[in-house]
């Protein structure tokens, strides 16, 4: 799979995760994974289709999920039975209205598309509102975290950061409390013969320390996982640990295969933590040096993915002390003679 297609697939899965919010939580917990699997199979059919076809697919999916989600929330029964439509009054009026509308398919399509986009956009905004304001990043003191971008020039200032640049920045006397890097990707997780495409965050060794997170089981990734000779370790999300391992404490220390490569499970991340990016649903964390060893495609399949200064692929998060403002951080970064840009994570 090309890097572009993999990225689109990841975005589509996130988009579908937002649409699933239309259904009640109990319904999502019961059917969510199967619905996602079904949706992604349908998505792959149109993945390379013209934009118009893909837009129609998304419109249909959005309207379907919103309508069915509302129906599940509102219905007590009657799902299986066809309307008996034998009465008078409202039922008859409704039937006549439907018949009339069937003669004006263009109008109906316009209304449906408008409603779908409107409702879909509202669902997305409310989900964003929920993610940003009601459920902020589950890390220690998120107000002390800032996103750091490598300057790409006046036309596109906020790029990612190349790994060599990140290491230089991390070693420079910037006075920061910590600087972590990550890149979200997909890979195949195989455990006891079962293979699953899984969202993974490829991270620097101090990622969890910078975020101020503690393990639920075992340990999290540490700097020596990035700098040492054996980076073949992985941390599981709480969700994956429960779903795939039945919350078995013995999962820590076991071996799983990532893209066919054996890797040791060293710990389980705290419950509720699913990565740093908005809407991400990360289920595995691996050290940066492991990614090129196991990559079959995508950016990490490039030999120089971690050595080329032009490959500005990493998201970088800085932790600062009390009272440090974005402009103060910018000044410190500028002093380090590295072209970088900073913005508050808390401000989005």
């Amino acid at each position, binding site marked *: 799979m090309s890097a572009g297609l993999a990225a689109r697939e990841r975005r589509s899965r996130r988009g579908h995760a937002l649409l699933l919010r239309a259904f009640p939580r109990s*319904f999502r917990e*019961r059917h969510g994974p*199967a619905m996602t699997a*079904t949706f992604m199979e349908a998505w792959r059919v149109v993945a390379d289709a013209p934009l118009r076809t893909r837009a129609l697919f998304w419109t249909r*999916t959005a309207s379907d999920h919103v309508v*069915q989600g509302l129906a599940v929330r509102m219905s007590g029964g009657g799902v299986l039975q*066809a309307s008996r439509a034998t009465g008078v009054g409202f039922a008859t009026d409704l039937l006549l209205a439907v018949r009339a509308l069937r003669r004006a398919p263009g109008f109906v399509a316009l209304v449906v598309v408008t409603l779908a986009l409107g409702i879909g956009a509202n669902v997305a905004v409310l989900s964003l509102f929920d993610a940003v304001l009601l459920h902020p990043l589950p890390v220690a003191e998120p107000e002390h975290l800032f996103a750091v971008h490598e300057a790409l020039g006046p036309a596109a200032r906020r790029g990612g950061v190349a790994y060599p640049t990140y290491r230089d920045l991390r070693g420079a006397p910037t006075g920061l409390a910590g600087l972590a890097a990550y890149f979200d990707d997909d890979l195949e997780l195989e455990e006891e013969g079962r293979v699953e495409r899984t969202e993974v965050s490829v991270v620097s060794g101090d990622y969890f320390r910078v975020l101020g997170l503690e393990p639920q089981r075992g340990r999290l990734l540490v700097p020596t996982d990035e700098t040492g000779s054996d980076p073949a370790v992985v941390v599981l999300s709480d969700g994956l640990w429960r779903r795939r391992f039945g919350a078995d404490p013995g999962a820590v220390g076991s071996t799983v295969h990532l893209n066919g490569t054996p890797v040791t499970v060293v710990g389980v991340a705290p419950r509720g933590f699913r990565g740093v990016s908005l809407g991400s649903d990360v289920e595995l964390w691996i050290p940066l040096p492991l990614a090129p060893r196991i990559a079959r495609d995508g950016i990490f399949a490039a030999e120089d993915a971690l050595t080329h200064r032009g490959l500005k692929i990493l998201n970088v998060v800085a932790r600062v002390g009390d009272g440090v403002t974005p402009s103060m951080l910018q000044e410190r970064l500028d002093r380090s003679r590295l072209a970088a840009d900073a913005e508050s994570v808390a401000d989005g």
Partner: protein
Amino acid sequence: MPSPGSSPSAAELLPLKNEVLHLLLSLLDGPLHGYAMMQEVERRTGGAVRVQTGALYRFLHRMEEDGLVGESPRPEDESDERRRYYRVTAFGRAAAAAELQRMRALVQSGVEAGVLPPAAEEA
């Protein structure tokens, strides 16, 4: 309409929704996962009936509650553990048969009224 919590008879569920009948028919040859059911319904109806993902799982949720379908073990060669397989139950078969019998009676009414030719003549 059966009351919540009770076990409905097949007749109580009639008339079945078009999609529900086709979903039951799609499972007659064996257990399928969601996407395979969507494809099978589309194939059986020549594209006339298409079930979207949200509708599919809303129907399956209720069909399972009413005992028309049940979850089936995942085949050994299935690698995606998110997939859930469904099978039609004996009650589901009975409901599909009852619905088709109801349709047959409707068609017979049409024949007797002279609106439709007898099946043999039509063929």
